[in-house]
């Protein structure tokens, strides 16, 4: 499955170019950030009400801004200084921006990975079966895929969330459980609906790639040979077709993680996320105070960009290394 040549190709393209290294370092730091968010955070990200004495939001450390506050029944102007207590300031409901930034990485990565797994779990079997059996089954499945393509992913996702609701489910936070952090939320909210929905709207890409692979593999000599020995279709699909179509599926999956992170952020921005800890939701919240307190929207946006870039860089690397037919784009 993963031959020696593939391994050496992976190594060579990795060592030759700077970009995959940047991607890997970025992704690992974001993973680290997400995993140890409770340890790294300075405040409970959901706790509101961190305001200055005057009742204003903190700007990032080293910055100041002037705002109007109501004091003693009068409206007066005050200049607010950043504080080391809230290094990146607080948002418009008085939550610590830095701590929320860390927790936002969890939502992005979790939805990205789980959503992609969901899409793979639906798309790959459908595509393999369609491509391998061909004929009516193929026609039928591919017409369904056509219908899915005609829905903009975002619009379909919105419609589906409209039906299923958007409630998250909670799992206990292992880091807090292990006693590594105190005063942090006890559980991680996983936006289950969003995860299922992004899987439901992106499986079709996997189905198309898997189908293409199965179509060509079923005509390979070794498959014909296996068939002539009396191997069942099931065996051939699992033993020959699936392993040999893995390469493009892995490459596609990597790129889809990036696509899904963006999709999740968009849904959250539109207010359909299920958890307020999402970066996209935070950007939406900051939109109202964009002119006066731009830091609220800025930081989570940078988080999304970095997460997506890191995944894209690794995707480019995998594609260059695993599929020599494609010229390297990222180099």
């Amino acid at each position: 499955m993963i031959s020696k040549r593939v391994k050496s190709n992976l190594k060579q393209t990795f060592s030759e170019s700077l970009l995959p290294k940047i991607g890997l370092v970025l992704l690992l730091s974001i993973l680290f950030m997400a995993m140890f968010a409770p340890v790294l955070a300075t405040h409970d990200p959901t706790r509101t009400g961190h305001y200055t004495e005057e009742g204003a939001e903190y700007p990032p450390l080293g910055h100041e801004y002037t705002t109007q506050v109501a004091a003693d029944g009068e409206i007066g102007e005050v200049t607010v200084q950043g504080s080391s207590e809230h290094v990146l300031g607080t948002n418009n409901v008085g939550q610590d921006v830095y701590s929320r930034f860390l927790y936002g990485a969890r939502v992005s990565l979790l939805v990205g990975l789980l959503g992609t797994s969901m899409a793979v779990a639906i798309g790959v079997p459908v595509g393999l079966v369609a491509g391998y059996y061909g004929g009516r089954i193929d026609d039928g499945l591919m017409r369904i895929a056509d219908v899915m393509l005609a829905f903009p992913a975002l619009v379909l996702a919105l419609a589906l969330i409209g039906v299923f609701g958007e409630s998250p489910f909670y799992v206990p936070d292992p880091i807090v459980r292990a006693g590594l952090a105190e005063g942090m939320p006890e559980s991680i909210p996983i936006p289950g609906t969003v995860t299922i929905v992004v899987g439901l709207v992106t499986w079709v890409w996997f189905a198309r790639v898997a189908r293409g692979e199965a179509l060509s593999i079923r005509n390979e000599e070794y498959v014909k040979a296996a068939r002539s020995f009396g191997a069942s279709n099931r065996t051939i699909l699992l033993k020959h077709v699936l392993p040999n179509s893995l390469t493009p599926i892995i490459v596609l999956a990597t790129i889809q993680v990036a696509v899904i992170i963006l999709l999740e952020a968009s849904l959250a921005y539109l207010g359909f996320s299920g958890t307020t800890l999402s970066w996209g939701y935070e950007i939406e919240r900051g939109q109202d105070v964009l002119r006066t307190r731009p830091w609220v929207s800025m930081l989570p946006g940078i988080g999304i960009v970095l997460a997506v870039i890191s995944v894209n860089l690794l995707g480019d690397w995998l594609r260059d290394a695993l599929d020599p037919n494609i010229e390297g784009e990222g180099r």
Partner: protein
Amino acid sequence: MKRKRDYQALDSLDTVYGYYIQMTLGKFLVRRILQGVFVIWGVITIMFGLRAVSPGDPANLMLAEGATQALVEQVREEEGLNEPIYVQYFDYLQGMVVGDFGYSWQSNREVEAMVIERIPATIELAVAATIVAIVIAIPLGVISATRRNQPSDYGATLFSLLGISTPNFWLGLMLILILGVWAGLFPTGRRPVGFGPAVLTLAQTGSPSDIFTWLKYIALPAITLGTYFTALITRLTRSGMVDELGKPYVTASQAKGLPAVLVRYKHVLRNTMIPILTVLGLQIGTLMGGAVITETVFNWPGLGLRLIDALDARDWPLMQGIVVFIAIAFVSINIVVDALYAYLNPQVSDE
């Protein structure tokens, strides 16, 4: 059995279009249109299904809070909500076929009118974004491919990496903040005039000032929506062109003395763009999704904004109308693209 794959576009042409080979262009189009009709039917059906399983009684959504039970019952009866589900489905389908999308639950207006009045703004935005993308991306891709591993190539690569990795709502907000608020170059409010009225003013009074206003207001949304596509087309153009430049016919064209301009554009770029065209056809969905977001960020009075309103209010007839319109647009554009592809690539239509 290696085939060219394109993961960025997430599509491999030959797997999907492979079996269209061996057909004449006419048959090809007929088949494509029939498939399109099927796709639209599928979209309509899925929307109906979603509405059927969605929680909440439509009659309640249609009426003001505190309506009497009798009134609710009356509305249910009038709207056919008491009929069996399949009767409702066929009524609904029948309406769709003759272009009757029903009435908005929220405002009680005809859905067709509510969709049609919002189409121009969205088309203006989509076209402007596409123009931005094409005008920037193709030269960038060409420069990148012809000057590989030089600073301009690295620059283009970095730009396209950022472009496909930046969420467009955040990009829009940052553009508003930096170019609109801080630099004061562009207005940031809701636009006062559409393209149609602006042209009308120009025709009637000869004053282009409305056109300028329109341009000022559309600039940031168009950049916001266009950036992802600019980045995508740059990447596709670069990799496609690098691929194409390595082909033997390029050397052969050079060997016969053809000027570099012709080799590069008439042969290589043209052949690069043919497959990209199909890829872009499939990205119309992404463009529409992007339009929804961009319209929300800029309060742009198009279909996307209306869709979000409809979603918030659970106004199903309006939602259905907009989604079906988007599907029709997607299908028609892709039929045109496929026909163009078959026309430009002689190997498809008459092998």
